[in-house]
C-alpha cells in the first residue's frame, strides 16, 4: 500500500483527511499550501557548524555550549513543530534561564491579551460547521491563508443544522475585496484602522443606543451598520472569525477586546462565538504547552529562575532590539525574514542555533544549523488545530533526519551535563 492517510502540517486548519502516495511522493485532497509542504523540497543537507558539515552529535554539543555559556539566550519559534518538542523547549529555556517566545508574539498575541481582559467566548470548528447560520470573517482571508477552512468548517461546510450553503450567511469585513469576499454573501469594506469604532457602533446599536452612532463610521454607513447588527441579533448561532487584519492594525488587542464585548452582548440575545484564525499548524500548541508548564503563553523570561510574563519586554523582537540576549535558538521559524531590521541586526551579532527541516533566511545568520525531520511526514507528534482540538500528526516515510523532539532531548541532556 503506497497510499497513507495524513494530517496536514501547514496551516492552523490541520486538515486530517489528506492522503499521501509514498511511491509518487505526492499528496491528495490537500490545498496548494499543504501539497507543496508534502512534496520534495529543498532541505538542509546535514548539520553544520559555521558552514562546515558535522555530525548531529557535534552540532548538538556545540549548541549546548552556546546555550550554557550565554547569560540570557532567546529560544524562539515553535509554531511549526509538535507539542513534544515544544515541551522540551520550555524545559530547556527554564534550565538555561533564557527567554521563551513563539511566533504568536508577532501575529495573534494581541488576541491573547484580549483573552486576559475579557476572556474567549468560543466554539470548536465542528460547532461552527454544525450550527453557524451567520459567519463573519473579520480581517481574515481564509481562501488564501487557510484554503480549505471554508469547505471543511465555515463557508460551504454542511452540518447538523446547516444542510446547505444557502442556510448560512457569510459576511466578510475587510479593508479590501479579498478572495474570501468574493465567496461571501456580503462584503463590508471598511477604512483601514477603523475596526474599533465600527465594533463600538455595533455594540451601541445592539444595546439600543443607535442614536449615539454617527451617519458613517470607518467608511460604513449607519444604515449598513444597523443592518449588520440586525443580522447578528437574528442569527441562531453566529461566529466571528478574525485574522491579522484586526490584531495587527490600529487598536490591536483593544480591537479584539471590543469584539469580545460585542460577543458578550450578543449572547444576551442569541448565541455567538468568536475565534482567531491562527496561522501555523501548531502555533496553538506553542502557547498551550508553556501555559501548563510555566503559566504563560509567550514572552516568558526565566532569568530569575521562575517564569515572568511581559510582552513589552520579553517578546523576541523587543529582546533583540534591546540587545538583551547573547545567544539565540531558533526553531521552526524564520525571524531573519520576518522581524524588523533592528532585531535582525542583533541576531547577526550573536551566536545563533537553528533547528529546521528547510533552509530559510535565518539559516544564513545561524552558526549552528541542525536539520530536522518534517513533522506530519517524517515524524509524529501532537499538534493543536487553531481551535485547540488536538490531533496526532503522523510519520509516514522513513528519514535519516532526527526529529525536533530527538534533537531537543539530546540537547537538553547535553545542557544538563555541562551545567553539572
Amino acid at each position, binding site marked *: 500500500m503506497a497510499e497513507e492517510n495524513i494530517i496536514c502540517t501547514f496551516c492552523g486548519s490541520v486538515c486530517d483527511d489528506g492522503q499521501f502516495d509514498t511511491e509518487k511522493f505526492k499528496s491528495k485532497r490537500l490545498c496548494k499550501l499543504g501539497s507543496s509542504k508534502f512534496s520534495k523540497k529543498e532541505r538542509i543537507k546535514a548539520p553544520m557548524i559555521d558552514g562546515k558539515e558535522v555530525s548531529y552529535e557535534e552540532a548538538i554539543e556545540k549548541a549546548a555550549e552556546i546555550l550554557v555559556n550565554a547569560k540570557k539566550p532567546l529560544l524562539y519559534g515553535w509554531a511549526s513543530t509538535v507539542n513534544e518538542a515544544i515541551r522540551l523547549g520550555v524545559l530547556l529555556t527554564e534550565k538555561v534561564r533564557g527567554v521563551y517566545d513563539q511566533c504568536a508574539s508577532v501575529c495573534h498575541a494581541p488576541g491573547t491579551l484580549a483573552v486576559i481582559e475579557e476572556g474567549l467566548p468560543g466554539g470548536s470548528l465542528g460547532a461552527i460547521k454544525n450550527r453557524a447560520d451567520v459567519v463573519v470573517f473579520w480581517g481574515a482571508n481564509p481562501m488564501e491563508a487557510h484554503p480549505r477552512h471554508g469547505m471543511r468548517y465555515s463557508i460551504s461546510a454542511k452540518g447538523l443544522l446547516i444542510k446547505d450553503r444557502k442556510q448560512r450567511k457569510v459576511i466578510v469585513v475587510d479593508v479590501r475585496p479579498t478572495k474570501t469576499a468574493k465567496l461571501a454573501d456580503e462584503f463590508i469594506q471598511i477604512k483601514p484602522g477603523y475596526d474599533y469604532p465600527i465594533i463600538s457602533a455595533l455594540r451601541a446599536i445592539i444595546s439600543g443606543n443607535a442614536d449615539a452612532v454617527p451617519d458613517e463610521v470607518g467608511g460604513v454607513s449607519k444604515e449598513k451598520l444597523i443592518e449588520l447588527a440586525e443580522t447578528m441579533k437574528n442569527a441562531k448561532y453566529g461566529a466571528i472569525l478574525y485574522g491579522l487584519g484586526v490584531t495587527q492594525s490600529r487598536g490591536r488587542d483593544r480591537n479584539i477586546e471590543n469584539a469580545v464585548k460585542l460577543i458578550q452582548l450578543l449572547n444576551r440575545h442569541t448565541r455567538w462565538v468568536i475565534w482567531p484564525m491562527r496561522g501555523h499548524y501548531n502555533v496553538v500548541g506553542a502557547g498551550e504547552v508553556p501555559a501548563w508548564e510555566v503559566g504563560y503563553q509567550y514572552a516568558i523570561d526565566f532569568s530569575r529562575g521562575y*517564569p515572568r510574563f511581559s510582552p513589552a519586554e520579553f517578546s523576541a523582537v523587543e529582546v533583540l532590539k534591546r540587545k538583551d540576549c547573547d545567544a539565540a535558538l531558533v526553531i521552526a521559524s524564520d525571524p531573519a525574514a520576518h522581524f524588523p531590521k533592528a532585531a535582525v541586526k542583533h541576531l547577526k551579532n550573536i551566536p545563533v542555533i537553528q533547528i529546521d527541516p528547510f533552509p530559510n533566511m535565518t539559516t544564513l545568520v545561524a552558526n549552528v544549523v541542525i536539520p530536522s525531520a518534517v513533522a506530519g511526514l517524517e515524524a509524529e507528534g501532537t499538534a493543536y488545530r487553531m481551535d485547540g482540538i488536538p490531533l496526532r500528526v503522523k510519520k509516514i516515510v522513513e528519514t535519516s533526519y532526527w526529529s525536533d523532539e530527538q534533537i531537543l532531548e539530546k540537547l537538553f541532556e547535553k545542557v544538563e551535563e555541562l551545567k553539572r
Partner: protein
Amino acid sequence: MHHALHIKNGIVIDPKNGVKAEKMDIFVKDGKIVEESEVKGEDVKVIDASNKLVVAGGVDMHAHIAGSKINTGRTMRPEEMRVVRNIANKFRAAVGRVLLTSPAIGYEYAKMGYTSSFEAAQPPIGAMHTHEELDAIPMIDKAALPVFGNWHFVFKYVEAKDIEKLKTFIAWALERTKGFGVKVVNPGGVEAWMYGGNVTSLDDQVPGFNVTPREIITSLIKAVEELKLNHSVHLHCNRLGVPGNYETTIETIKLAGGFSNDARQVLHVTHVQFNAYAGDSWRTVSSGAEEIAKTMNSMDNVTIDMGQPIFGHATAMTGDAPFQFTLHKLTGARWSNKDSEVEGGAGIVPLVYLPKNPVHALQWAIGLELGLLIDSDKVVLTTDYPNGGPFTEYPYVMAMLMSKKMREGELEKVSPFVQKATNLPAIDTEKTLEEIIHMTRSLPARILGLPQKGHLGVGADADIAIYDLNPLEIDTSNDFEKVYKAFKTAEYTIKSGRILAKNGELVDECWGKTYWVDATGRVDMEAIKPDLEDYFKYYSVELQNYGVEEEWLKKPERIVI
C-alpha cells in the same frame, strides 16, 4: 536508593481495615505495603514515626487539574500565575496562586500528603490535551473522567432506549479517551445552551432530541452498572447555581433508588454545595443542605462530595457552559466559553469568595453543613478545585469539620446572613479524626473503585502520609490550629514506596500512573460501528484520527474489566 521501608511506632488510622489509632509498624517493599517478613534481609530504611499519625496518601476524587479548561484559565488569568512556589533547581519552577502550573499541582499535593487526583471533566475530543497535562503533573497517580451527558451519541441511544448500544458506546469512548469513568454535567442543559437556553427540570425535553435529563441519567446509570465499571456515574446535577435547585438535587439523588451494587454506590453526585440552595431568588436564598442530608442518609447507594468554597480567589470552570454564562452576567467578570463539536461545552469565569458577601458566606456554610450532616461514609471532602478554591486548603475543611469551636470563630467573621439562612451555627456535630481520614482516603478510593488505594493493608499501594499529630493525645475540638497546621504539611509523603516530600520540602520526584478502564471486552464493538461512521459527519475530524493511543501516554495503567 532503599527499596524497602519500615515505618516504626506510628499511630495508624486505617478505616478500611478497622485500624483506629493503633500504634503499629508499616512495611513497604517495591512500592507496596507488605508483611514484616517480606523485608527481612533487605536494605531497609527505618522512619521513626513515634507519636505521629500514619495514614494512607490522600485521594482527591474531583478536581480540575488538567486539560483545556484549566489551561484557558491560566491564559486568561496571568495574575494567578505570579505567586512563585519554587525556583528552578533540582525541581521544576512552580508558580500559581489558586490556579497552578502542572508541576506546581504535583508538588503541592505531595507536600500535603495527597498522592492521587482525578481530573473530573475531560472533553472527549480534547482527551489528548488532558493527558498531555496529566503527564506533566509529577508526584501523583491520576485519571480523567470524560464527559458524556450532552454527547449526541448518548442522546440517540437513550432516545432509542438501546442500553446495549449505550454500553458499547461507553466502552468505545473510555477506550478512545483513555478515560476512567462516566462523568455527566448538566445532562441536556449544555445542548440547550447551543440554542441559548438551559434545562429547568429533570423532565425538560432536550432540543432536537426526544429525551429528558431524567432519562439520560437513569440510562447512563443502567449502562454503567451493567458494564460493572470501577466507578459509578459521576454527576454534576442540572440547575447548578440556581436558588431552589436543592429540590432537583433530591429528585436526582432518588433516581438511584432502583439500582444496586454490592461494592459501591451507583451514583456519585458531585460538588453538591452548588446544588443545595433553597428559596426562589438570590434575595430569598437559603440552605437546602438539611433536606439533602436527610435524603442522603436514607439511601445507601449514593455518595456525594462537598465542593466546599474557601474564602479568597477561585476560578469557576465547568462543562456547564450555560451556568458559566449566567455567572459572567451576575459578576461581570471575564468569560471564556467552548462549544465542543457534538459533545457538549464548557465555560470559565474568575471568582472570589468574600466572607462578608451574604451569598458567598451562605455557600461556605452550606458546604460545611453537607460535610457535617451527611454520614461520613457518604460524603467526600473536596473544593471542586479550582471552582470552590484551592485544594491546598483541604486541611482547613478537615479542621472545621472536627471542631465546633473553630466554626464558631469563623462564623463571627462572615456575613450574619448565614445565621438565618443556614443551620450551621446550631450544628454540634464534630467529626472524628477517623471519619476525616475516611472522607479523604478510604471513602474516595472505594467510590472510585480502586481497591489498592486509600488504605494501608498488605497489598495496597505504598502511598503513605505521616503527619505531626498524635491521635491518642490531640483534642481535635480545641486544638484545631494544630490540626490545620499538621495536615497542611505532611512530615513525610511517600508515593509507591518513595519518599517525595519531608516537612514541606520536596526530596524526590516521581511520575505516577494514569489509570484508564477498558470495558471493550464486555461488549460487541462492531455493534456501533455503522452509527459512528455515519454520525462522524458532524465532527470536524475523521473517526480514524479520533482518540488517544496508549503508547502516547507516559505511564498508562489499563484496568481491564
